[in-house]
Structure formats: C-alpha cells, structure tokens
C-alpha cells in the first residue's frame, strides 16, 4: 500500500483487516520483526511550509530528510538535533524520511546541548489505528494547549499512529565550529574530561569518547559552535582547562562528528550493536563491569558518556542478559539496534519496563490502536 494523500491513508488504515508494517524509507530496521502488509509512506512527501524568520518548518512525513536539510541549508538553517543516518551501521539502502526519524526519535551528538528530536518537534498530524485523522501541537515554539502528544508520538515507532505531517523548530547553522581532540585517554579519564567541558560555561555542542579499539586509539572530542570570535575564545578557555587537547576546525571537525553521529566505526564490522542511555558518569563504570563479567565489546561514548554504543559478539543472546542486568542496577535503558531477525525475535529489543509502566504503555496502545494493527509487537 502506498497512499499519496492523508485521506487515502486514513481510508487504508480504517479498511485494513490485518497488521500493517509502517515504512518510511526502510533504512531503520530496528525493533522486533513485524509481520504485516507494508504501508509505504514515501508517497506523502514534500515541504509544506518553511518560514526562516520564524524558525519553522512543516513537511509531510514521507519527505526525505536530505530534501529537508537541503531546503533548510538554502536559508542557512538546519535540524538542530543532528539526526543520525542509520544506513551505514545497519547496512540498509533507501532514503531516510522525516516520519521514520520522528518515529524513532533520532538525535545525534548535539542532543546533549540543545535537545532531542522530540524537543524540536512542534506538531504532528497522524492517523490512529481506527483510521481517524488527528493532530496535536502546531507550528509555534511555545504551546501548552492540551496534552503534549507530540512527544508521545516521537519515539513511538509507529505503534500509536501513522505520522502524516510534522513541524519543527529549526535553527541557523553557526558561522564556525571547532573540536578539541585528545588521544589515548582511558574511558574514565575521557569521560571525566567531557564532564568538565559540559560543566563549563562554554556551551559545548558535542562531547564524545571513542574507547580504545573502537576507531583505533582511544579518542576524546569536544565541539564548540557559534560566531567565529566566540568559538576561538571558548576553544582557548577549554584548552586551558583540558590539558593535552589539540584543535581541529571546519570540515575536519565536521568529519569527526559525522563518524560519531552515524556510529561509523561499527559499520561493516561483524557483531551486534546496542545503544544504552545511562547517567553519563556511569558510562565507563558500566563498560568496565561488562568486561569484568566476560562480555567482550568495543564502546563509543557520546552525550558526555551517557549514550553508549556497544559492539558485541552476536552469538547467543548478544550480551542481552548481562547488559540488562547492569541496567537494572544503574538505571537507564538498552536497545538492540543491530541484530539479525532471529536475534531480534529471541531477545527484547527495547528495555523491558517495570509492570506498572508497562501497563500504562499497553493501555495507551489499546486506546490509540484498538485493533493492534500498527507495527504490532515492534516495541515488545
């Protein structure tokens, strides 16, 4: 099924007599495998409104992310949350869409400064499981009218509704960027440096540590963006506080962050990949504990240490029991981002929730999708 209008889509959902597998560009093969008819959203495509002076962009959900980025770049703007492109890591082809990005709440290194995809999402239109056309939020930056279902829809992986239109707050592309880089630090020292940088007044927009062996020797990096004079000033201030960091600028700096954003060091390397969100200082602790328990892995720490990409052997449960055991102790959550279908059927892809929270999630799904036909089981 490939609807070309919202009304057509609503009729298709209302008339569906079995499960639907909602698909944007098909580049994010994440979640428990869903059996169902493919609902191809690429037909609902195009930028509806871009108002640079109001920092607002509205587009249909099937619009390619690249098209939106090009439209924004023409006016010197961008999606501020730096969405990851999953294709290299997952070995997929196709065209990432806005809808897929929102459904997965995809954010990159800049999330640590400005916020996630859900923080910049101003409004949604979507079709619920009964085929109703619904809207929430809008196109203005401050809006507390009624419940915030915009955030609920972001990261719901198409299990609550099929997005048809999304609105964003966008921001200007800064004049300059620079990155402070150090090599050979231990995970603990690297993350401590990131914490010092993020706890400074210098408005850091990226803070990552690539553990030893993830991309050669360990690498710790801190990004500053803004007006040229300001970037130079803050880089100097940070260098004074973080001895041993060198500076790279422009394209060289950008390349370092694309590598982290898209988790390129793990692309094409065999193994399963987990994505963990924890308290930043727990990052190195967790990695060390897993090693002590015998789970060999490579680790990339983003978001000041709080976002960990783990490359593990895909055999058995791919470390699921050990990783989830650590989560139970430390708090946070772990998602299996890359694993073959058999693995994604065998282990819960998303962090299992405590019973009362799980009951709320089940209750919400029953309201939004009473027949259970939208990506059923994808989130577990």
């Amino acid at each position, binding site marked *: 099924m490939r609807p070309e209008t919202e009304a057509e889509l609503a009729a298709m959902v209302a008339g569906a007599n079995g499960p639907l597998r909602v698909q944007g560009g098909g580049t994010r093969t994440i979640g428990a495998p869903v059996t169902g008819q493919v609902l191809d959203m690429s037909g609902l495509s195009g930028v509806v409104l871009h108002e640079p002076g109001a920092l607002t962009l509205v587009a249909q959900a099937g619009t390619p992310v690249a098209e939106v980025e090009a439209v924004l770049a023409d006016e010197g703007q961008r999606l501020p949350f730096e969405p990851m492109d999953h294709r290299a890591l997952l070995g997929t082809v196709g065209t990432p869409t806005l809808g897929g990005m929102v459904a997965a709440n995809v954010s990159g290194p800049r999330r640590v400064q400005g916020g996630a995809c859900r923080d910049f999402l101003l409004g949604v239109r979507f079709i619920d499981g009964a085929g109703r056309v619904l809207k929430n939020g809008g196109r203005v930056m401050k809006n507390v009218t009624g*419940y915030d279902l915009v955030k609920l829809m972001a990261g*719901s992986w198409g299990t609550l509704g099929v997005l048809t239109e999304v609105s964003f707050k966008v*921001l200007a592309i800064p004049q300059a960027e620079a990155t402070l880089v150090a090599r050979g630090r231990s995970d603990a020292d690297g993350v401590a440096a990131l914490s010092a940088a993020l*706890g400074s007044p210098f408005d850091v927009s990226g803070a990552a540590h690539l553990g030893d062996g993830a991309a050669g020797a360990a690498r710790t990096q801190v990004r500053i963006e803004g007006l040229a004079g300001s970037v130079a000033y803050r880089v100097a201030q940070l260098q004074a506080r973080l001895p041993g960091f060198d500076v790279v600028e422009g394209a060289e700096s950008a390349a370092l962050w694309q590598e982290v954003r898209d988790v390129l060091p793990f692309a094409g390397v065999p193994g399963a990949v987990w994505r963990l969100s924890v308290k930043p200082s727990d990052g190195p602790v967790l990695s060390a504990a897993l090693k002590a328990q015998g789970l060999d892995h490579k680790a990339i720490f983003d978001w000041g240490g709080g976002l960990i990409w783990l490359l593990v052997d895909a055999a058995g449960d791919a470390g699921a029991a050990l990783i989830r055991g650590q989560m139970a102790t430390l708090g946070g959550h772990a998602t299996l981002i890359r694993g073959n279908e058999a693995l994604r059927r065998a282990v819960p892809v998303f962090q299992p929730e405590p019973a009362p929270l*799980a009951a709320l999630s089940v209750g919400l799904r029953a309201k939004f999708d009473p027949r259970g036909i939208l990506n059923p089981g994808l989130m577990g």
Partner: protein
Amino acid sequence: MEMPKPDPQVMAKKPQLVKRLQEVLPTDAVIHEEAETRAYECDALTAYRCPPLCAVLPSSTVEVAAVLRICHDMGVPVVPRGSGTSLAGGALPTADSVILGVARMNAVLETDYENRFIRVQTGRTNLSVTGAVEQDDFFYAPDPSSQLACAIAGNIAMNSGGAHCLKYGVTTNNLLGVTLVTMDGTVLEIGGAHLDAGGLDLLGVICGSEGQLGVVTEATLRILHKPEGARPVLMGFDSNEVAGQCVSDIIKAGVLPVAIEFMDRPCIRATEAFAGAGYPDCEALLIVEVEGSDAEIKEQLDLILEIARSHNPVELRESTSAEESAKIWLGRKSAFGAMGQINDYMCLDGTIPVSQLPYVLRRIGEMSQEYGLGVGNVFHAGDGNMHPLILFNANKPGDLERCEAFGADILRLCVEVGGCLTGEHGVGIEKRDLMVDQFAPEDMDIQMAVKDVFDPKWLLNPAKVFPLEVSRLRRAG
C-alpha cells in the same frame, strides 16, 4: 466559567474522609475547618473561588500515595496544588474535592554537578532550585515570572516557560525524570539521570498534563553552568511592523539571543509612568539580551545592532554597565505591576507565528476600540508567545464578562493565524471552553483517552482542560 455541581454524596462523606485522612497524615496536615479551607479557594486567577471539601499537605511520596488511595477508594475528586500561582485556574477546587498541596515537600534530594542534574521534591520553588546550586555557578534555566513563588510541581503540570526559553527551552526540555503517583496510589519512576525515554515517552506527556494524570512528587532537573555574563540592548521603533521584522531578521541571522522581549506603546507609557526606566516614547520597543564573555557579547551585539540599524530605530541603547542593564530591564519587569496600577487586568498567553505579529497587534488594537477596553502588549517576541493585558474594572458590573469575551476573541485570533490558545500558562478553566476553537472533537478525544489510561475514574483535577460538555460522559464514570 461553569464548574460541575458538587456531588452531594461525596459532600456527605466529609466526616469519614477526614477521619481516614487523619489516620495517614499528621493532624496539622489535614485542613478541614471551613475557616481554614478558604485559604485554598483559588489560585492566581482570583475571579473564581470555591473552598474545597478539605486540603491535605503531605510530606512525602508515601503520604501522597496514601491520600490518593483513600480518595480513589471513596470516589473523591483531587485537585493537586503547587504554590497556587496558576493564572489559568489550574488549582481551582470544587466544593466536593480535596486539595492536595505539595508545599511541605521542598527538599533537595540530590545535587550532581558531574552529571549536571538536581533532584528535588516538587513543592520546592523554581527560584530556590537555582538557589541550591548558584553558589557553585549553576542554574536551572526555565524562569517563569512567578519564579519566586511558583513550585516545580506546577511548572511541570503547566510545562512553564519564561523569558529565557528562546535559548534554553521550557520545562519539558529541562525535565529528566519524575516520581509520579497515579490516582490509585501507584508510585512510578519515569526517566532519571539519563536522557530520553526507553519505551514510550510518558515523561513527555506527563509534563503539561495539568495535574490530570498523576501527582508528581519528585523531579530530576537539568542544571547548567551559568554564562560568564549577559547584557541587554534596547531598541525603539515607530511601528509594530518594523519591530516585528527586526525580530525575524535577528533570529534568522544565526545569533540566538537568550531573550527578545517586546512592548507596545500603551505598555511603554504605563511602565514609564510607573517605574521611570527612561524608555523612549515610541510605538514598539524591543529588549534583546545576549550572553557570554565580554568579547562574545560584543561580537553578538555588533551583529544585532547592525540589523537593528537597518530598520531605522528611533532609539538604540546599549548597556555599558550592570546599572544600565538593570535599568533597561526595569520597565519590562514592572510592566504587569504598572498595568495593575491603572486598573484590574487579565493576562492572556496565546502564541502566534512570529511573522503574524504586526497583523495580530493591529487586530488587537481594533478590537480594543470595539470592546472599549484598553490593552497593553508585553511578550516574548522571539518565540511568538504574546501576553496581551486587558484592562477592566472588576467593580463595574459586566466589565469582567466583556473582558473575558475580548480575551476569547484575541485567543481565537491567535488560533486563526496558526498559533495556539496558551504558550506557557496552561488551559486550566480559563481557556477550557475555547479548546473547541483549536481542536476537533476527535483531537480532544485522543487526549482524554490518555487520561482514561492514567485515571480511569476521572478523579484528578477533572473539571479542567476539556470543556465540561466534552468530558461529561467520562466524568460521570
């Protein structure tokens, strides 16, 4: 504003209810004498008052859960209350409800600079969250203008903003986790010191749900290191259109000021007479503030001033000292007080696309003539969040009703141009009956379905947010 008729069966249970509440709370935490319940008869929307059946002031999550279990069991509605500063009537009781105030729960539970968060009980005031970390040069960013008094609980319920959210975001963007007690007394931990939800973003929907999904007793909040400095610049223009265009050009240019505040002529004149901040007598005035080191401030202001000059300002005043900065902010900060000197006023809170600013201001001026009520505009221009202040005389029969009708027309205008009814104050009862102007029936139905899941009996703050007619069947159970 209509409120549901109190349920006589619930009213009749008062002695039994008070007794049960006294079993789980200290004696002084259950307020039930009529003279004392009056203290909880309204919030900052003082036009509407109604003493509750009783009020409780629990001191812990465990006590909150015990209270909710009793009320759930007895079918008594509960209205959660932070500091009672809501301008929308979010904490207005009904005669058959229990006010659950979190004011006694104001402890700091954990401060973690390494991971940049603070965990507090939600009765703590907004300003005292910053107060707990400012000696170490950290701060909590959302800064509603009631921040001296307002509680974090209410900030979360209404997803409060402030003058500086253009750069730092509103409450929801700075909230990492909550302890939530649902109406049946279940205690839930959602989020924490880590970023983003694992499953569905329940935290996102709880923030801004106006106390209708649960009572938030503890919160983990993001804190940031203070900037090295901040400095405002004042600009006067001879038309709202030009000032609006200047705002657009500034935010388009790639400098992100922390605040862009806008005042129109009626407001400028009122504050000038009241506070004497030395503002120019002009049609529109902007205060733009930037942050950073001295050199960084200069770099940003040079760019901003260049843009301002291209719009032929009638006044351009750069602060060169802390004293001058304070003077520039003085008028803005006294604006509400100044308008209050003239008359009673009602403060609106609609948001519009920034591009619609000149049109909306012109229409508000025309409507002001039609209604015969004065109006001043002072608001956060960078994000289009307007605060028209309508002047009326509360002692003059019919004036409040006329003022409310005027306000409703302004809010409908906000929706019409692509905006919304409320940007940071919340719906409460004040904008409840206008929800039909922004949402189709099914858009409200899906929101109410969320409440069905969290609070199936519709006992938590039930008469708010959704028009009574729209929620009638659900409230009837």
